[in-house]
């Protein structure tokens, strides 16, 4: 629990128990909101690579 007394909410819907064939029927659901949000994040930040280089 956090300082507000709650677990942290994430932006990813829990899809583990949902049959894949059912996903297409969930257009107006939190899944659609998460998709919109994730797409925006990809547009804003792309998928960065964390690279490290050292030489002596």
């Amino acid at each position, binding site marked *: *629990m*956090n*300082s507000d007394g*709650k*677990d*942290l*909410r*994430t*932006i*990813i*819907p*829990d*899809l*583990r128990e*949902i*049959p*894949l*064939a059912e*996903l*297409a029927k*969930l257009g107006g*659901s*939190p*899944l659609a909101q*998460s*998709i919109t949000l*994730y*797409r925006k*994040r*990809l547009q*804003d*930040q792309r*998928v*960065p*690579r*964390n*690279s*490290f*280089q*050292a*030489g*002596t």
Partner: protein
Amino acid sequence: MITEHRLPWAEFESLAAGAGGLDAIGSLRNGQRSLHTMLLHMISRLATGADPEAAAFRDGWELLGRLQLEGAHDWLLDLPHLGGWAHYGLAGIEDGNVKGLSHFAVMAAAAAIRSGTPFELGVPVRDGRVVLPGLGFLEVTTDSRWIRLRCDGDTVNVGGHFEADRRLLVPDDGSGPPVPHWSGTPLVRAVADGLTWQVLLEAEYPYLDYRLPPMPAQWAAGALEKWRKRIQLAWEVLIRHHSWAAVPMANAVSVVVPLVAERKNDRISATSPAAFGAIATSWPPDPVIMAETMVHEFQHVKLGALMSLIPLTEPSDKLEYAPWRLDPRPADALLHGIYAHLGIALFWGAQQEIETDPDDILRARVQYARWRSVIEPTTRALMQAGCLTEDGRRFADRLCVRAAELTAVPVPGTALSMAAEAALDHRLTWQLRHQAIDVGATADLASAYRRGEPGPGPELPRSWTDRRDVRPVEAGLRSRLLAMRYLTPGRYRKKVEKADHADGLLLAGKSKKAIRAYRDRIISSLDPQPAAWIGLALALNQVPDEPFKNIFATQLALIFDIHGHLGSEDGLRDPIHLARWLT
């Protein structure tokens, strides 16, 4: 009813402190499974046309649905290859490009072959191979770009050309006999103290290439065996001395991508938030360095997964100083770097207690001293920049608490001063490169100095961070020697004689002579001498109670720029005199 994933506060706090046990890794993995499902669903909504690439994707998607009903699809959702590919696939199809979508068919086929699920699919052939991600590849002789794979649960029929027992289509751990038409992906099974780390060596998978040079497609003779041994020895270091990182890492990291560094003494390593569970690295020079690299990169793996679940940074154009890079970094990259260096500090903090060779002890102590000291100030700078979300600020607060705990641990003075000097050299090099200062204001100050007017007091010209190199300055031999002095002391002892006169004095601790030498060089040269200015600042910093060390350490770029406006008048070219005027 769909609900979002939730992360228990204790797991969040444990991750923020640099650790994160098996529970936290389990939560991150569960989130990645849903994220990968969501990405595939996003692609499936767009992969609708008659193009064979889109059709192959849909067949794979249908097969994954069947695997899910059998409880056999988590293996694929956990495979780093899937996340790596899905981000490329989604970006491509959103631009209207279906090329590469058929790759998902071989992913689903690999999962079905592994679980013994019957299927029939058309899959792409590339360079005479049908790649089965996470398993290996089939060699086929065909001119066609496509081939049908059919599996009855036991046997895989490859386009009618040959059949293979699906139980033999597995990664190659080096123990089994050759399988006709099959090359298993090299698998390393490292065992130490009864604990096992299984990891694939994925040298040529296109969606895990990190845009860095990968290994050549063919393993050179003996190279694979060398990697197996190095991973085994690194695992022994990790499990015996860094179990806080080793146990969760072995649970999460299933792929190592070997890279080739451009130069012999360079090391490169990388991760991508898209590919949870994969770490790329060039050949590590010894098992301890490999262990450190794994700890370092595993920090990125954890944070990447966490940030895909819970945004910790806000989109921002602000750039900040990162004490480990010579380019300014945006907020998310800076937070990644901070977190990675917390892991590095924890690693060397433990390592300094177990090393026995004097050079290795020195390396561990200085590495510990150097990286623990940057975590809190860099995190505070990030917080002050206003680039963190509310959860990001909570994460940063916990990071700072952990950093303070590390900073309280005593370290011998020699190691502390070596670490501080390397850090100052880095910061000053960055400052000269990227701290831009109002040109008109510095010219006005130069005029005032020339006219003998009083100094400006606390009101200094406006400055800002510039992504470009503002002044031409290289991290040259002195910077390399300052790092070599503790990273590879044996090499340092051979190379230090190549340092120029002033740098040699600095490195020998002859501070006052070094100050004179750098000062003379700046006064006598009409060309800018950024390396000499940094050297002068370092030499001043070596002298206790030196009155100008602080202004050189914090305002070097300003003094340098004003000096550049002064021209060739001898009486005006003394950098110390100029610093006194500014103080």
